[in-house]
């Protein structure tokens, strides 16, 4: 092959490469051009390199020089295009890449106590059913804690050993830490007329020895509805809506007869949870004596009341085996909720 023809090949190679790289718009096109012109296996430069062997011996040094010039020029054109397309900057950034598995800057969030979370949840569900929050004192008198609730003086529930009575001046009316949130029902009924839907919640106190299932201070949520024509079917239906919202899904409620001085009929109510009946609390129709004590006509109005032990349902929900854990205030416990 004549050296002129060889040089002509190189010139057309450079022109073609220049034209192609000048119009490349993305990295895929750039790669395609690289393979076509500079590819190590079947690129056009490779083909020209093969022609080098066909030159006369005397022409070979000059042919090699021309070949190298063309190769350097096209390689440089390629680098320019690479730079133009931003591939170079990205490569440079890659060099500063971070270990994305390293931890983020810590943010310490606080936690609401699981008892409060449970109370709020029940409260929200009851609010959707039209029950407003009512509040009352924790230090109560005998009337609101016992008498208005049809618990007479000789009733065992009033025994000094079963209540936290306050040391008060002789002759003064005895006061005690309330043993149930039903006291709030009495206060609300004394102050207002039906229709009433209230939910009262808070701390109550009974002298139980602290163990895995008892604590002398615990929380109750109590609901009261007094309207014309209220029946036990309304009670069961409200409790079923509470159970379904609280536990999720379609939950059934079961009544078992029981005894409380301030409701008649009285029941314990169970909810179906994980294929078993779980005791949830006590309920019943407000006793006519209680309605009369607050000045309502029991033939005109009827109502129901129910109470839940918050610790018990929170313990079950969160898998807490010992309710004393709720009062240890260990942040390693609190941070799990």
């Amino acid at each position, binding site marked *: 092959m004549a050296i002129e023809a060889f040089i002509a090949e190189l010139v057309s190679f450079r022109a073609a490469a220049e034209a192609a790289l000048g119009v490349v718009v993305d990295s895929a096109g750039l790669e395609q051009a690289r393979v076509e012109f500079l590819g190590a296996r079947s690129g056009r430069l490779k083909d020209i390199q093969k022609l080098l062997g066909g030159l006369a011996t005397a022409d070979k040094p000059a042919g090699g020089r021309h070949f190298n010039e063309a190769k350097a020029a096209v390689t440089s054109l390629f680098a320019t295009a690479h730079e133009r397309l931003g591939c170079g900057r990205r490569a440079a950034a890659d060099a500063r890449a971070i270990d994305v598995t390293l931890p983020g800057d810590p943010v*310490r*969030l*606080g*936690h*609401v*106590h699981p*008892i*409060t979370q449970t109370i709020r949840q029940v409260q929200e569900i009851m*609010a959707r059913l*039209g029950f*407003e*929050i009512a*509040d009352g*004192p*924790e*230090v109560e008198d005998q009337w609101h804690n016992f008498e208005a609730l049809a618990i007479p003086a*000789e009733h*065992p529930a009033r*025994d*000094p*050993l079963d209540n*936290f*009575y*306050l*040391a008060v*001046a002789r002759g003064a009316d005895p*006061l005690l830490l309330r043993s149930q949130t039903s006291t709030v029902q009495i206060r609300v009924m004394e102050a207002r007329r039906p*229709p009433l*839907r209230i939910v009262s919640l808070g701390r109550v*106190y009974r002298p139980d020895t*602290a163990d895995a299932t008892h604590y*002398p*201070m615990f929380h109750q949520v109590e609901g009261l509805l007094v309207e014309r024509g209220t*029946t*036990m*079917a*309304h009670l069961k*239906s409200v*409790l*079923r*809506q509470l159970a379904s919202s609280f536990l999720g899904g379609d939950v059934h409620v*079961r*009544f*078992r*007869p*029981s*005894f409380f001085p301030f409701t*008649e*009929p*009285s*029941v*314990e109510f169970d909810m179906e949870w994980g294929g078993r009946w779980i005791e949830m609390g006590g309920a019943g129709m407000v*006793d006519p004596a209680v309605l009369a004590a607050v000045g309502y006509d029991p033939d005109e109005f009827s109502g129901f009341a129910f109470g839940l032990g918050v610790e018990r349902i929170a313990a079950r929900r969160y898998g807490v085996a010992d309710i004393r854990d*709720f*009062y*240890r*205030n*260990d*942040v390693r416990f*609190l941070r799990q909720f």
Partner: protein
Amino acid sequence: MIISTTWLSEYVSLPESTAALVERLLLSGLNHESTRRVGEDTAVEIEVTSNRPDCLGHIGVAREVAVLFDRPLRVPDPRPREADESAADAITVEIVAPEVCPHYTARVIRGVKVGPSPRWLVDRLATVGVASVNNVVDVTNYVMLECGQPLHAFDMAAIRGGRIVVRQAIPGELFTAINHKDYALAAGMGVIADAVGPVALAGVMGGAGSEISAATSDVLLESAQFAPLAVRAAARGLVLASPSSYRFERGPDPAAVDYASRRAAALIEELAGGRVLRGAVTAGQLAAGGATIVLRHARVGEVLGIEVSAERQREILSGLGFEAQAADATTSRWRSPSWRRDCWREIDLVEEIARIEGYDRVPENVPIATRTVPESPRGRTLRRCSEVLVAQGLCEAMTRSVVGQPLEETASPWSAAPPLVCQPPLVRGADRLRRTLLPSLLEARAGNLAVGADTPDLFETARAYLARPAGTPAATPIEEPLLAAFVIGGAFARGKGLLEAVLVRLGLAPSSAAATFRPVTLDLFAPGRAAEVVLVAGSSAGERIGVVGEVAADVLERFGLKGPVVAAELRLDRLEAWADVERKLERPSDFPAIDRDVNLVVGETVPWGDVAAAIRTGAGALLEDCRLEQVWTDADRLGAGKKSFVVALRLRSAAGTLSGAEAKQAVDRVVEECGRRCGATLRA
């Protein structure tokens, strides 16, 4: 109460499956505790509510089964063969204290042969967990467990003077019970005495001196009514509860006093031989139960929300022993049985019908009319406060409302009156109703550090209890302020910042000047490093609604804590009104702001609060923000006794772009006002 199914089947035929039996009882008011095999027999433990003493005997439970499964009830009618000799010739009975014992009966059986009980009796008692003693004592236990009426058998030879006197205990009187322990008695307890002294503690336990032994020949059989309060006083006061006291506290069937006496006398004669003397010696008046009740049949549906036919209502009541006296189309009149003293009103009959008919019939899907409920100011206040504290990494604690002296000796920010005291203590040593939450939180912090828990920053929202100040009327309720408190690691500024954030979230912007911080001295806090928050409303002098400060070194030491620890407490009950205030948009200005730094030099004792107030007055409406950048002292550069506040002012107008001249005028007014009010000079 433990039931033997073999025993129970003597009165009513039982369903084939014990599981079906207990399920039905469970759903009609007798909660199931456990079922277990005992030899050939089955023991079923049931829970009997305090209003149903009739079910503290097998016959009562059998009556429930008979009604629930519609089967006949068979109750024995014992008629002991009586000798000619009269019991009244052998013993006299006198009731001195009818308030302890309204009614007492005694029978006498002479010439018994005390020995082991027959197999059937030993087995039945064993099933229900009662050990056999001898044939006479076993009969008294058996009859109690049959009909619910407790009995006691005395060895007649040990009854001195041939007389029984029922009276109140003499305070301090000593009594040796059948358990061979000595008890000092108190007034209010009842005793059975002979001519010399107590032989039994009325309704609770017999005495060791008169117990039935192998040598006993003549038996005095007591069947009586004892008052619940007297029995409870003795059983509680002496910590001596017995199956007898358990039943008397609840009130057995009055009709069973005589029934049990006849039943036991007949059984003793049958099993131990001897002669039953004629008649029973009685004293007092039997307080009999039984009420007349009118039932409106429609009432059942009105209460239960299900229809139960009048015929079915009558069938249930008759089965339970209620006696129909009259009936018309819509009502019927009933006499309640002696053993159901819990039933005396119409609503009680409705409940009886409901539990036998079954609550499973009550529907659980009736519609409930909707009503809307707004969030209460208290709920909103609590929620907002907790949101801020949780967002800042604090965990909510729950500590006891009643604390011990070590926690209470820290003074309360809220009351100087001594704490209220309760009896018994909530837990050992804790009998004071707390007046502040802070010591409880310090204790909780110490507990966390002791177990190696890191960053135990805690808050709590709970009530405190403040005694009435001296001289207030007794009817004044105990004040129960709702408090929010936190205890965290860090210096004063961290605590104050957190407290301010809570106040802002509750609607009290710091610039509103409604809540101001003033230095305060409280023994919980390090001297000079604590503030009170005072809420100024109208022209009043202002009320303390919060405190914040670094915890004093001696307090930290007492709790085993290392500083710095900052604590704060806020009266949320005083802030509820603010949570309710509606927000209105203040539209941000579209015009550019001008930032100016001023360096004000003042005397070392001038508080920032005074300077800030002067800046606000001086800059007026143009001041958008005033931020304290730096406080520094340098005797060489500022002079001794001086400090410098570096303040960044941001000025902006809502009406137009501020000119440099306007900004300069504002800054000049700031410097002038600070100079006039705080002696400040501008450092060039």
